[in-house]
């Protein structure tokens, strides 16, 4: 049995013992009394808030329970916010407006309410050259309390190919930002105080992730001093397994890719306590066509596979566990009423009961993005509505951060206008509407949410069982299991759209044959800019020609002798470009063989 088998058993056991606990609370007087006591204490701790209309409300909504069995059931199946099994949320309070909250006794002593100091809104951007994306970051974050910068890279960067490589000219700066050197990295985040706690940066890149993060760290050291690493806040995606299963942007074979990742995670766990060195991602799995259940099952099982891999290297789950983060897609299928909270539950049980990890490692920290695939070109302003509904589902599931897609996403890298609308959708939901800012649990725990959640949980376990039968995650990967399932689901989805089983407004329903929709402002990178990126790269490589070979040889030695590759990369990137480093790695460890 692989560890996934143990996780399946742990979840089944958790459900089973939950029922036992309910019975026991009813029959065992002592336990019953303790339940009532716990419940009273939980209720007493809840602070209050006053709405602009003068309504005084508790900051957490709990059901009216006065029977020990039902209390036990609630605590076991639902849990308090920020408490195991974290169905409601990872933290006790999220999204609440500090302005309207009355400080509790506790908070009075600690001088003020600290909740909700940071917006969950995180806007993904990347276009053209580093300075273009930098300008977009400044534009998007100009009114935010905190600066949460989320970076999309162009194709050549994602594949670790230099802008000067044969045949990639057209791709430079399209769909994301072009980064070739540490100097580009400096330009990318210019003007942001990366050493301050209100700035966090995320980078959506996996294949060459350690090289890019090394550039980020090295660039930050230039600006903020050599001890800045410990202050850097952010996330890098670096998810090897989902690349193999869905996104197809892996560069090196799986084994060395995992090793480079583990080196980076190890380094970050020790030296960069505020950095999330991996974002275990279902987003691309879902976008490639997976069903919501497949998304959740493959992402969670990938997460557990990483835990196994890191532990086998001797790393401590309590040290690296809190630095793992997750990234999921939220679409319009009914599963999404409960999917994200079920993921938190499964993760918590696995981490606690199989790996013995502590609370910080049990909580699944989640970034969500609304579904890109659900957005369509026909009658595209409808996309505003789709995204708004998906946002609602994501926040009902207490995501920790969220990116909302722009309505023009089917056509182009978002224009400023629609990126603004996308950001404002979140502000309208969280700040303008009263749904999330006054009270925790306003929309959690409905009967429908529970019924769907149970069905989703069982379906995820069924997927786990199949993966377990194939020898665990890596065995299933080898057999193309996840890939073939995702592709089959994607094909079915398209067939369902074609034959109308799946209604899509504007496409197979309510379509307007002479559709006269607003013009889209297409974002394109000018030829001159692409050339400029090539020239800059050439110039960098010329200036560093003297140190190149020695730096790369040093790097090869570390790879071959088993040292920490990430640590060495922080030095290498001072003198070598992304393309040069990738090429050297390929010579030493080989290339990823594409799976189709």
């Amino acid at each position: 049995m692989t560890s996934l088998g143990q996780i399946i058993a742990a979840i089944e056991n958790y459900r089973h013992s939950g029922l036992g606990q309910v019975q026991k609370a009813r029959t065992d007087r002592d336990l019953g009394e303790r339940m009532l006591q716990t419940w009273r204490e939980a209720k007493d701790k809840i602070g209050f808030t006053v709405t602009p209309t003068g309504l005084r409300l508790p900051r957490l909504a709990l059901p009216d329970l006065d029977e020990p069995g039902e209390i036990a059931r609630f605590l076991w199946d639902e849990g308090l916010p920020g408490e195991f099994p974290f169905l409601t949320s990872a933290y006790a309070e999220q999204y609440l407006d500090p302005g309207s909250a009355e400080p509790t006794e506790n908070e009075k002593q600690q001088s003020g309410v600290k909740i909700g100091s940071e917006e969950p809104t995180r806007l993904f951007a990347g276009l053209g050259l580093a300075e273009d994306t930098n300008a977009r970051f400044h534009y998007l974050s100009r009114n935010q309390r905190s600066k949460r910068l989320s970076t999309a890279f162009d194709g050549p960067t994602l594949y670790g190919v230099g802008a000067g490589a044969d045949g990639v000219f057209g791709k430079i700066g399209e769909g994301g930002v072009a980064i070739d050197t540490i100097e580009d990295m400096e330009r990318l985040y210019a003007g942001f105080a990366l050493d301050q706690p209100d700035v966090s940066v995320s980078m959506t890149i996996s294949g060459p992730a350690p090289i890019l993060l090394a550039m980020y760290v090295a660039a930050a050291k230039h600006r903020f001093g050599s001890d800045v690493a410990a202050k850097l806040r952010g996330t890098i995606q670096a998810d090897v397994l989902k690349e193999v299963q869905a996104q197809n942007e892996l560069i090196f074979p799986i084994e060395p890719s995992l090793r480079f990742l583990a080196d980076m995670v190890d380094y970050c766990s020790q030296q960069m306590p505020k950095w999330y060195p991996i974002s275990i991602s279902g987003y691309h799995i879902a976008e490639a066509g997976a069903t919501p259940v497949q998304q959740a099952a493959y992402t969670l099982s990938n997460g557990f596979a990483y835990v196994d891999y890191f532990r086998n290297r001797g790393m401590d789950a309590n040290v690296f566990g809190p630095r793992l983060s997750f990234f999921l897609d939220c679409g319009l299928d009914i599963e999404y009423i409960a999917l994200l909270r079920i993921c938190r539950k499964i993760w918590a049980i696995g981490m606690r009961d199989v790996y013995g990890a502590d609370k910080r490692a049990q909580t699944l920290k989640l970034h969500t993005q609304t579904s890109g695939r659900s957005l369509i070109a026909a009658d595209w302003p409808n996309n505003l509505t789709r995204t708004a509904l998906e946002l609602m589902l994501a926040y009902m599931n207490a995501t920790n951060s969220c990116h909302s897609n722009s309505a023009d996403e089917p056509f182009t890298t978002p224009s400023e206008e629609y990126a603004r609308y996308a950001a404002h959708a979140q502000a309208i939901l969280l700040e303008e509407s009263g749904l999330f800012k006054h009270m925790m649990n306003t929309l959690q725990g409905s009967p429908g949410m529970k019924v769907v959640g149970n069905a989703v949980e069982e379906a995820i376990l069924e997927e786990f069982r199949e993966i377990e039968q194939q020898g665990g995650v890596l065995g299933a990967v080898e057999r193309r299991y996840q890939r073939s399932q995702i592709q089959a689901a994607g094909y079915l989805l398209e067939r369902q759209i074609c034959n109308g089983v799946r209604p899509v407004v504007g496409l197979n329903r309510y379509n307007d044959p002479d559709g006269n929709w607003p013009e889209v402002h297409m974002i394109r990178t000018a030829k001159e800019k692409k050339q400029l990126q090539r020239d800059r790269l050439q110039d960098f490589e010329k200036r560093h020609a003297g140190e190149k070979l020695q730096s790369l040889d040093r790097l090869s030695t570390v790879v071959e002798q088993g040292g920490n590759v990430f640590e060495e990369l922080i030095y290498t990137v001072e003198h070598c470009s992304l393309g040069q480093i990738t090429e050297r790695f390929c010579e030493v460890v080989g290339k990823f063989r594409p799976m189709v």
Partner: protein
Amino acid sequence: MPATRILTAVPICDGHDSAINTINLEFIRHGVEVVYLGYNRSARDIVRAALQEDAVAIGISTYNGGHVEFFEEVLDRLNQLRLTPMIKIFGGGGGTITAEEAKIMYARGVDRIFFAGTPLAEMLGYLRAQYRDVVQQPYERLFIGTDQYLARELTLGERGAPGSPEQIPAATKPDCKTKVIGLTGPGGAGKTTLIDELVYRFLRSRPQNQRVAILAHDPSMIGSGALLGDRATMIYSQDDRVFMRSLATRGQTGGLSPSTHRCLDILRKSELFDVILVETVGTGQEAIPFGSGALGGVDKAVLVVPPDYGSQLQLQKIAMIDSADAIVVNKSDLPGCKTAVAEIEYRIRANQKGQALLRTQANRHRDTGVDQLFESFLGRE
């Protein structure tokens, strides 16, 4: 009616294969033979593959931008080889290709862009109307010795046409230097990876003027379509020194296609290659695709098996074990390898034919087992 053969791919630095996977599936379900080159493929790789496969059209599915430049580069390369307008180009990119860009692309010679929301049936209809009845005539003699001449000969050979005997160079000399190696084995044994790794070693160790050909088979579906996907997982075989051709089995069982021997003959007689590697489809226990001895058309037959072929009883039933020149236990990192090797060793010792037994892990960079296989069969002579 010959099957329509098209080539599909996703451009360089782009891994968005969800659309093309769906489209490929729809095409093959309706009788099209799709040679799929995979994602992150350069214009150079695409054109080389289309030429070698003698595809009537190239379908490109793009998503992350730069499509105008990319399609243009594909067209330029086709033009240089005088393959336009014979090979048509079609493609799509959801909403990312604008109507204006499509106009530019049409002006440069792109045949058709499918916009967002195009039903699968419409694409299939276009394919049938435009590409199904394309007539592929033999090339003029002036092209003899080129890859495109060879590719067309293979097309005609595959159709079973009597070919054009006067254009085929003189019969193979008895001392023909071309060495033909056949690789067979069950699905999932890793044959394609092994071949690509052999090619890697060939390209590095043999002189620049030496070339290798690959004849790769994939099964046809009911309804006669086929997904010819071996190219998609290859890394090193995307090289001008490699000529690869994909064949669908078109109803024949046993691992090869009805035209394999004809095609092999054409490849040999072209005298362009020092080595020809033939890959069968995943075979069953009874298959002896290369026949026995010289009749099979290969100089050496290699059986590739994974360690988990089943019990020893299952092993006894694999007919190919008696006729292969070498048996390779690939994926030697998987559990059960030691047992597999011991069982096979026992069996071939009883055969007393001097069969080689090797252990490889083709998916490992610079695997010494693959080195050994290469040295045994393809090393310097």
